[in-house]
Structure formats: structure tokens, C-alpha cells
């Protein structure tokens, strides 16, 4: 019952040359965002989640740039477009960014301008994209603030970000992102900086808006609880690659990739009734840096199930193991067959 993807990412690569060598934060991402759904993207810090979000809007931080792959936006409003081929500063990209694909950031204090009122910042969106006048923009901004349940929206129009609490700042940022009625919302850790009671409010708000407006949402988070609560499908990232992709229920019930299994089991969950102070399963080591080039599977040095001579030699590809459930792990015959087939094909050199 998967609907047509509104954004379809294929083999997306982001990289930059540094004095230590080639930095490759994204190493070939394949990801579909089905129309009107919320997809979760999870992983530990440094795995490339935020870089994926930024690449979708073509705002990779310099000197990082998209070095390969395609991002096809097909929202039915215009002919399908490949965002990765557009000039990041060009007119075409700027017309899409904010208007058709919008983003909310983790840190509302740094993402909002400290010297403009939040009303101005929300109004700016429609003044630029829809060429609305000052008065119409103000009315629209107040309407947006109302929509995100900002208390006293009319007075808050004139507030500066420092006047607001963390939760209200995040509401203001959501109002700004949604001001032009985008079809796709990329939410990069939208609740990580918030307390749990406020997090619950913001997640509920996002879910309500997504249902009301029929938006497609990519929710990036490291919190498995947030994913379980708000998404239907999840992709797990590790070292610039997606290593598992499934419906949320499949992923939590039968995680396939040893990394996902490790992530799920190492978190002490509230109400899990695990024995008190029973040792938690751990993963050895940490996420390697984006400079590291590993032969075979990127996770094999940390994997407890790694097979010598296999996992450190053959590069696994994503393959469907169960219906609608793909993984990038050679322990599954489906993946092994696909990977062996893939490795005989010469990989195209990344554009330098």
C-alpha cells in the first residue's frame, strides 16, 4: 500500500576534500519519502542524519557538497526536478527551498535570527515566496502562530526569540517552516533540546499538522521512543549509509541488522521491566569518522556477529529480506547474493 514517493533519493553522496583526506559523510543514500507519510531517520551522532537533511534542501555546509546521486522532487505541482543538480544558490533551488520543501532545526535559538521579531521572520517567508504585502504577511504570520497553538499569538508576533521559552521558540520555528504550506517538511531533531513534557506537546503538534495539511515529514532523531511514537517507516543510518529500512513495527519487532539490534537493546527503556542494574548489552567502539574507509561492511569492526573473510571483504548492498523490510548485512542470504552480484560490477568513481 505504499504510495508514490514525493521525494526519491538515489545513491546520494556528499563529500569534501580535507587535509586529512576525503571526508565522506554520505556514502550513497537511497531513500523514498512516500506521499503524506512520516518517515523516521535514526542513528548515532556522526552517522550522517543531519547531513542527509541538509542535502535534501541543498544546504550542505561548505566545503561539503553533493558529489553524486539524485534527489527527485515530484510533488505534482511542477514537473519532477532533480534537486541535487540545481545550483544551491540559484533561483530554481531558492524557489523550492522553504516553499515546497521546508526544514525545522534542532536548536531554535541558533536557527532563528536574534535581531528580528518572530513575526517578521515568519512573514518574510510569504513576502519572499508569495510576494505578499506587509499587512497581508502580518495577518498570515499571526494565523500561522495560531495554527501552532502559540499562546497569545497576536502579542507574540512582536516577540524576539530571547523573549520565548524553548518550547515556544520551537513552535515559532514550525510556524515559519510551514508558512508557505510546504509539501515536505524535514525535521532535524525537533525536540532534542526540549524537556519531555514540552517534547510531547511538540510531537503532538507535528502529528496534528501533518494529518491536517497532508504533509510528508522526514523526522530525524536519535531517540527511538520518538520514532516509535510518530513514524510509520524508519531508516537506520550508520557511517553515511542506510543499513536498515522497514515499517516501524517490523523494525522494533524483528530488527535485522546487528547495529539496529544493538541500538534497540542498549537503551534502558522506561517500563521495560529489565532487571535492575542488570548489565546492558553494549556495542564496542564508537561510530568511526567520515574519513574512515573500511573494506567490506562498515559495521564489521564493532559487530559481534561479523564473519572473518566475509564481512571484512564483501561490501554489502541493501536488499529486501522480508517483504517491505530491507537490510545491509551479509548474514542474510538475500543480501549476500545481491552483494556478490553487485561487486562484480565496477563501481563508478565519485566525481572529485
Amino acid at each position, binding site marked *: 500500500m505504499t504510495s508514490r514517493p514525493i521525494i526519491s533519493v538515489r545513491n546520494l553522496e556528499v563529500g569534501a576534500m580535507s587535509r586529512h583526506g576525503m571526508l565522506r559523510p554520505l556514502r550513497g543514500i537511497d531513500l523514498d519519502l512516500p506521499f503524506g507519510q512520516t518517515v523516521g531517520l535514526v542513528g548515532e551522532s556522526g552517522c550522517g542524519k543531519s547531513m542527509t537533511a541538509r542535502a535534501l534542501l541543498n544546504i550542505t555546509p561548505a566545503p561539503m557538497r553533493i558529489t553524486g546521486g539524485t534527489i527527485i522532487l515530484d510533488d505534482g505541482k511542477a514537473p519532477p526536478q532533480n534537486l541535487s543538480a540545481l545550483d544551491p544558490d540559484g533561483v530554481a533551488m531558492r524557489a523550492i527551498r522553504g516553499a515546497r520543501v521546508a526544514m525545522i532545526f534542532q536548536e531554535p535559538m541558533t536557527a532563528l535570527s536574534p535581531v528580528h521579531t518572530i513575526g517578521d521572520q515568519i512573514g518574510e517567508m510569504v513576502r519572499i515566496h508569495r510576494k505578499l504585502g506587509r499587512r497581508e504577511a502580518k495577518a498570515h504570520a499571526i494565523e500561522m502562530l495560531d495554527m501552532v497553538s502559540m499562546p497569545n499569538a497576536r502579542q507574540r508576533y512582536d516577540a524576539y526569540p530571547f523573549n520565548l521559552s524553548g518550547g515556544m521558540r520551537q513552535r515559532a520555528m514550525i510556524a515559519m517552516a510551514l508558512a508557505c504550506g510546504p509539501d515536505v517538511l524535514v525535521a532535524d531533531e525537533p525536540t532534542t533540546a526540549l524537556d*519531555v513534557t514540552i517534547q510531547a506537546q511538540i510531537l503532538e503538534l507535528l502529528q496534528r499538522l501533518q494529518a491536517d495539511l497532508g504533509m510528508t515529514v522526514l523526522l530525524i532523531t536519535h531517540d527511538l521512543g520518538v520514532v516509535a511514537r510518530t513514524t510509520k517507516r524508519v531508516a537506520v543510518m550508520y557511517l553515511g549509509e542506510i543499513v536498515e529500512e522497514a515499517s516501524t513495527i517490523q523494525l522494533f519487532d524483528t530488527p535485522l541488522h546487528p547495529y539496529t539490534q544493538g541500538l534497540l537493546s542498549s537503551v534502558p527503556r522506561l517500563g521495560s521491566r529489565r532487571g535492575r542494574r542488570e548489565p546492558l548489552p553494549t556495542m564496542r567502539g564508537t561510530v568511526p569518522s567520515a574519513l574512515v574507509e573500511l573494506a567490506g561492511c562498515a559495521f564489521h569492526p564493532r559487530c559481534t556477529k561479523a564473519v572473518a573473510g566475509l564481512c571484512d571483504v564483501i561490501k554489502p548492498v541493501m536488499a529486501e529480506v522480508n517483504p517491505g523490510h530491507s537490510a545491509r548485512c551479509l548474514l542474510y542470504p538475500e543480501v549476500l547474493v545481491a552483494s556478490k552480484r553487485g561487486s562484480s560490477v565496477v563501481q563508478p568513481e565519485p566525481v572529485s
Partner: protein
Amino acid sequence: MTENLLELRKLSKHFPIHSGLARRVTGEVRAVDDVDLIIKRGETLGLVGESGCGKSTTGRAILRAIEPTSGEILFHGKDGTVDVAQLGRTDLKQIRRRMQMVFQDPYASLNPRMRVEEIIAEPLICLERMSRGDRRDRVVELLELVGLNSQYLARYPHTFSGGQRQRIGIARALALAPEFVVCDEPVSALDVSVQAQVLNLLIELQQRLGTTYLFISHDLGVIEHLCDRVAVMYLGRIVEVADTEALLRTPKMPYVEALLASVPHADPHAVTAHAIVRGEIADPANRPTGCAFHPRCAYATDVCRSVAPELRNVGTRSNPHLAACHFSETLQLNGVA
């Protein structure tokens, strides 16, 4: 019945608010307000709350890393009881041998210009008369205790990952074999896979050394895993204290119910209860009258708006369950399933 190691009596920390050209004191923030709390020898007591509720200030005030405004901090050592709040400089230095702290941010809490050996040896230099050789032996022993290679002695903190740095911080805290350690969000800055390693280490060390922990955290999953008892703070006051199991399954204070309901469960089958608490935490400089939680509380009545509830025992005598709510006995609150 285990004995008490530490007793806080009416511990308060008020920060003045200055304003105007003359920087006159125009108000105060009651970061910690009349906190009564008992920490038993050998236990792990969790201290939970949202940011700004005063949990870190409480932890720091116990060690007098910040000076409490008033109140008593009774430390029941093997050689009698001392009030830490009253100690002078020399005595305070001596008590620090027995009370130490692990900090939240493994990047900010280690001096980048000191080598690992110097960092871990610092408490030994300050408080212990040891020969150079003995000191080095002790540092090596500590490094091994926290699972780090003793070859790391001459390295600087920047060469370590977050998890390794937190291990160094733990080794420093344990250098003097303290009886009591305040762990202030020790795993909040770490990724989940590393978080599990550090939690396992803290648990293992406690079992081996019999240390008492005050474990400050906002992560209720971690608290459930680690703590024997839990205290919840809201706007500078303790609002509920009970055994972990009792507090999580049968909370007696509406704020705790709301807090538990707000945690997203890492289980996609779980039905999300929409008992989401309204509004935001109030300004601690401008506390609501009566019960501080009443503006957000779904059960609030007139009494809650005018009379501040005392923290009182609503459990049994042998199994106390303290809560600060007028209606603890009548409300049927939901805990974690």
C-alpha cells in the same frame, strides 16, 4: 533497615536577581527551596526533573560546589555526624575526600591542557600524602578500574572519545575512594551505545566499592534501570519520593503522572495516552501561589491555588511514599504500564 548516609534538612539555594543601574537586588530565584531528602548508605537515589527544576543545583549544593543559602547537610560518617553546610575551609577539604562528583559534559569537565595522569592524580595531590611512585601506581590502578589502558597516562583529553573522557572523569571522582558520588547527568552527552558502557561501569563500580550515588538525570529509562529510590523535583522543591517501582507504577503526584506519560515509549505497539500536560514550567523567580504545579494540573482545585502542599508520607510506615499533593489519597493516577 539500612542506615542513612546523608540527610538534607531544609536545604535552600536562592540566587538574587539584580536590576537597574545600581544593580540592586529586586528579587530572587529559589533554585532549591527547603529540600528535605535522605540518602541511604549504598543505595542509588535518582533525582529527576525538567531543566531548571533545581536538580543540578541540589547536587552541587550538597558538595558545597555552590554555597547553599540555608539548611543542613548532615553527613553520617563512620566517625560521627557532620553538618557539611557548617564546615570551614580545612574541614570541607577533608570531607571532599568522601564526597565527589561526576559531571555531565565530558568535554568541559576535563582541563584540555592537563594530561590524563595529572587529571586523575589531582585529587591525590590535593588531599593525600603520597610519594610520586605510589601516586602513579594509584592512577594506573584507577585507569584499569574504569576500563582504560594504562598506556594512556601521558595523553591529553582531546585524543579521547566522549565515552572514554567520561571514564576519565569517573576515575578522577573515585581517586580518593569516596563513600558518596553525585553523578550529574553522566550519560546525557553520550550516544546510546556508549551510554550503555558507562552505565554498566557505574553499576559495576558501585557493586565492587559499595559507593552511594545520587544520580541526577532527566532520562526516566536510565533512572528506572539504575536507581533504588527516586525523588522528583519541580520548581526547586521535591514533589515525590518513593521506591523506584512504586513511583513509576503508582505515582501519587499529578506532575509525576504527566512526566511519565510524556516519555515516548520505544514500542510502536504502545497506545499513546494523550494525557499531555498543558503549558510550560513556570518562572522560578515568580512561583505560582499554592502548589507550584497547579496552573498545569488537570486536577487542580481552589485549595491547590492557595495552599502549598507539604511533602508527606502517603505510603506505609515501613515503606514510605512521600508526595506533595493535597489529593494523593483520592486521585487514581496512572503510572508506567
